[in-house]
């Protein structure tokens, strides 16, 4: 395909009359209902997915504003913009928002939107559960932010170490707000993860055996499993903490046989996998973009899949490297040095495979691909500084300093945000039907790229020069001023880049060139349907003939027939080979997930103030769940296509 065709909308052959009838029937069946409560009843995976993505991006911007506040405060020694009380709330809510309300949800939201499209099905498994999960996530997020705006935001760090967050030192309700926000996101992310796993295992189009799944789907699969195990751990921890604080248990109270280190083990057993939960979908996006813009198959697909799975497992074996300074036995620490170095091997392998793919491709350098280049530049630096801190002795020098701040931001911004920004530009045509501006895309890339480097590279130096993290100010005599000023200037550049990026999205949605179905000549099934996709995703479920579904599709490719037109039927296929097994009807729109989410919100929010909140909340949630699951009478007639 030549470059000109990129901007020319795809021309589809005129539809036949039966096809039109089928489209109308499917539209009636799958379209959201029109009532005033439409938004609350919605169960379409695309609508919910976009909702999650845009809510998460909103929190990304809000947490970015907090970052800007911190950089303003730290730009000069003894600056008076934020006092210690406000600063502690700001950095706690920044970290909590970025990790729990932005990074994991945005990846899950993209999974909700794209996994059903990429595997060729009409909706996510458990659509009502996903609707419920969105509202739970929204309520929990608002709870945290309303707390911050009313000066009761948590102030004990996103890691909430006991005893600082415990009943004796974490005064007021601030740490409770943190613990309950975490509970909200645990519930919703686990619900999304279960839906994504089942969709991937049971709803793939015929022919899409496991070894033909797009890398992005693989990464979402591994990520979702990681969410299940990581979130249950932090659920245990946050419930222990909440009960220590609210009902007087002693899980973390040494005076009664509890142990503050228990908290750290539980937290980091979740906390380190969390990094990979955020990073792996980023690698999936890199694989997608590299394939599309290098115009060739991924080199080392099997290796990439195995590396992803290996990362998923190894990610659970490295948590103690966050605790080297706690005085654990030295041999044990060496074990975790080994495991932390070990996880570099699959990560390195992924980098090498992408480089090989790029090398032998025919590159079209477009704005989304620039973000992939930025990913290499920044993530590899973050990964290598990660190798440095895997060493116990070196880590003890830089642990809890700005060196680590720089390292973790390089990993998370380079490894997740850059691929995300690239992928959003890549996918925007699919969501809106319009191409984004290449010029604005490039401008935003350079601003964000330069801003990131200018912000975080000086922080490595600050860490080595002895500046600890999480301090609201520093003395002028420290000499840290110039490097901090540089970092703050970088943050301003970064913020400007994000604004240009947003402007690009807004402008292109109104005035962008029409995109057509597949403006990038990409290979995954999401590009086989119109942009934006119809409510039912595909008129006919395709039969997949190769690993790169659209590139290997022949002109006479078979399609699935026999799914009902008047019911929300999807095809269930076998887990390994995706051979058809049965037709399955998914539920339609309903208000009950929303009401159940409200009940859940009452449970956790009022539970902060009185144990009776749990009782009242359950009394509200219970009936909503019963009504949600109430069986309906089945219609007798069937229409099939």
């Amino acid at each position, binding site marked *: 395909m030549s470059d000109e065709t990129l901007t020319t909308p795809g021309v589809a052959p005129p539809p036949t009359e039966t096809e039109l009838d089928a489209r109308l029937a499917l539209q009636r069946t799958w379209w959201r209902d029109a009532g005033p409560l439409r938004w609350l009843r919605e169960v379409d995976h695309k609508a919910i997915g976009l909702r999650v993505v845009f809510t998460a991006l909103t929190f990304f911007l809000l947490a970015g504003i907090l970052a800007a506040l911190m950089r303003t405060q730290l730009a000069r020694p003894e600056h008076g913009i934020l006092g*210690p*009380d406000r600063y*502690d709330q700001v950095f706690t809510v920044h970290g909590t928002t970025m990790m729990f309300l932005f990074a994991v949800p945005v990846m899950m939201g993209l999974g909700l939107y794209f996994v059903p499209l990429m595997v060729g099905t009409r909706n996510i498994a458990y659509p009502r559960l996903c609707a419920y999960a969105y509202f739970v996530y929204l309520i929990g997020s608002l709870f945290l932010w309303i707390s911050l705006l009313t000066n009761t935001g948590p102030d004990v760090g996103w890691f909430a*170490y006991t*005893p*600082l967050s415990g009943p004796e030192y974490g005064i007021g309700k601030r740490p409770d707000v943190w613990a309950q926000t975490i509970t909200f996101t645990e519930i919703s992310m686990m619900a999304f993860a279960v839906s994504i796993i089942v969709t991937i295992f049971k709803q793939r189009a015929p022919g899409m055996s496991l070894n033909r799944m797009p890398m992005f789907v693989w990464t979402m699969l591994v990520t979702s499993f990681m969410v299940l195990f990581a979130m249950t751990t932090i659920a245990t921890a946050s419930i222990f903490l909440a009960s220590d604080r609210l009902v007087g248990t002693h899980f973390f109270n*040494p*005076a009664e046989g509890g142990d*503050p*280190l228990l908290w750290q083990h539980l937290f980091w057993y979740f906390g380190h996998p969390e990094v990979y939960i955020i990073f792996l979908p980023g690698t999936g996006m890199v694989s997608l973009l590299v394939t599309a813009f*290098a115009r*060739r198959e991924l*080199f*080392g697909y099997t290796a990439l899949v195995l590396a992803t799975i290996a990362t998923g497992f190894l990610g659970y074996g490295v948590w103690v490297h966050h605790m080297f*300074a*706690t*005085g654990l036995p*030295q041999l044990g*620490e*060496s074990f975790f*040095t080994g495991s932390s*170095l070990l996880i*570099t*091997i699959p990560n390195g392998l992924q980098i*090498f495979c992408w*480089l*090989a793919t*790029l*090398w*032998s*491709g*025919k*590159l079209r350098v477009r704005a989304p691909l620039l973000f992939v*280049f930025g990913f*290499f*530049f920044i993530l*590899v*630096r973050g990964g*290598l500084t990660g*190798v*440095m801190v895997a*060493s*116990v*002795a*070196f*880590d*003890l*020098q830089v*642990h809890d300093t700005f060196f680590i701040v720089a390292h973790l931001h390089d990993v998370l911004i380079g490894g997740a945000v850059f691929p995300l920004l690239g992928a959003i530009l890549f996918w925007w045509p699919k969501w809106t039907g319009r191409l984004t501006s290449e010029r604005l895309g490039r401008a935003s890339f350079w601003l964000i790229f330069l801003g990131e480097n200018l912000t975080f590279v000086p922080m490595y130096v600050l860490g*080595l*020069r002895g500046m*600890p*993290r*999480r*301090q609201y*100010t520093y*003395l002028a*005599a*420290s*000499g840290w001023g110039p490097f901090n000023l540089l970092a703050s200037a970088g943050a301003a550049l970064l913020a400007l880049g994000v604004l240009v990026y947003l402007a690009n999205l807004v402008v292109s949605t109104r005035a962008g060139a029409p995109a057509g179905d597949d403006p990038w000549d990409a290979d995954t099934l999401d590009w086989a349907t119109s942009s934006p996709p119809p409510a039912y995703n595909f008129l006919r479920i395709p039969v997949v003939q190769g690993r790169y579904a659209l590139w290997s599709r022949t002109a006479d490719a078979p399609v699935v027939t026999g799914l009902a037109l008047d019911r929300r039927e999807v095809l269930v296929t076998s887990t390994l080979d995706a051979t058809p097994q049965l037709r399955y009807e998914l539920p339609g729109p309903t208000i009950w997930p929303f009401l159940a989410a409200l009940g859940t919100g009452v449970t956790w929010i009022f539970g902060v103030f009185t144990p009776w909140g749990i009782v009242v909340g359950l009394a509200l949630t219970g009936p909503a769940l019963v009504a949600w699951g109430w069986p309906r009478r089945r219609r007798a007639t069937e229409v099939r296509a």
Partner: protein
Amino acid sequence: MNPLGDWFGRHSVLDPVGPHAARTMSAGWIVIGVCAAVYVAVLVVLALAIRHARRAAAPERGPETHRRHVRVVGAAVGATIVILFAFLFLDFFTSRGLAEVGAGASRPLTIVVTGHQWWWQVTYEDTAVSARFSTANEIHIPVGRPVMLKLLSRDVIHSFWVPNLAGKRDLIPPYTNVLWLRADRPGIYRGQCAEFCGLQHAKMDFLVVAEPPERFAAWVANQRSPGRSPADPVTRHGQAVFLGSACILCHTIVGTPANGRVGPDLTHVGGRATLAAGVLPNTRGNLAGWIADPQRVKPGAKMPPNILAPRDLQAVVAYLASLQ
């Protein structure tokens, strides 16, 4: 040397003055060097790949390309594994070497450091109970002699860190952690709390003063003596005000009825270089300001403002400054 002058460049991981920090950095430089080389190599390959693939007429897909990729990627993974194994052994032997620095010590000096929100209590242990003494936010050690720090916390988790001397170690209730130090050059080295511990985590500093053994012995002898008795009317008045106010609920001055255990021991406060945990130079003006309104310097600190008549305040300052 003025401890609160410009400490940039001296307060650094990169300027070790003891065997712990030195060994850490000599291993650290190897790791940093190798990682930097790997980083440059990856970026160079990325740049070459971009150049190569932009000029390509079509994607290369043949079995020959594949075989070449397998060889190159395989070699890169192999190199990664070799480098990581080297790092693992380097780390293991570095950690073992660091442990031996302490274990080989024949006559270590034992100091108990207790973290409080937001200051450091420093108690010098001795077999004779009468020879023990306490100070705050300033740790004097003899040059060349290994020091064993027993680290405790009375409230939340803190972390003890002197970048020039050694890596950090957390103070976690109810545990006793141990950190070994040795300073090989005399000097004043800054330390700071490295684990977030609440409102004034940022202003929880301390100084490690490494001095020749004779000077250290003289310092110890002085610290073991009770607080100096007031010699003139102003300091006598100051002592009376101090002992008659709320100060004694929290502070100790050995040799007087003041024996509060909540705040820093003030027996020799006049001889310390800093006030408020390494934050203010110990001048009379700063001392007066600190006593009158600690919240201005460290909002959230546990010390309340003290409303004293100017004459009383000046007298208290004179008295405390005389406690050399």
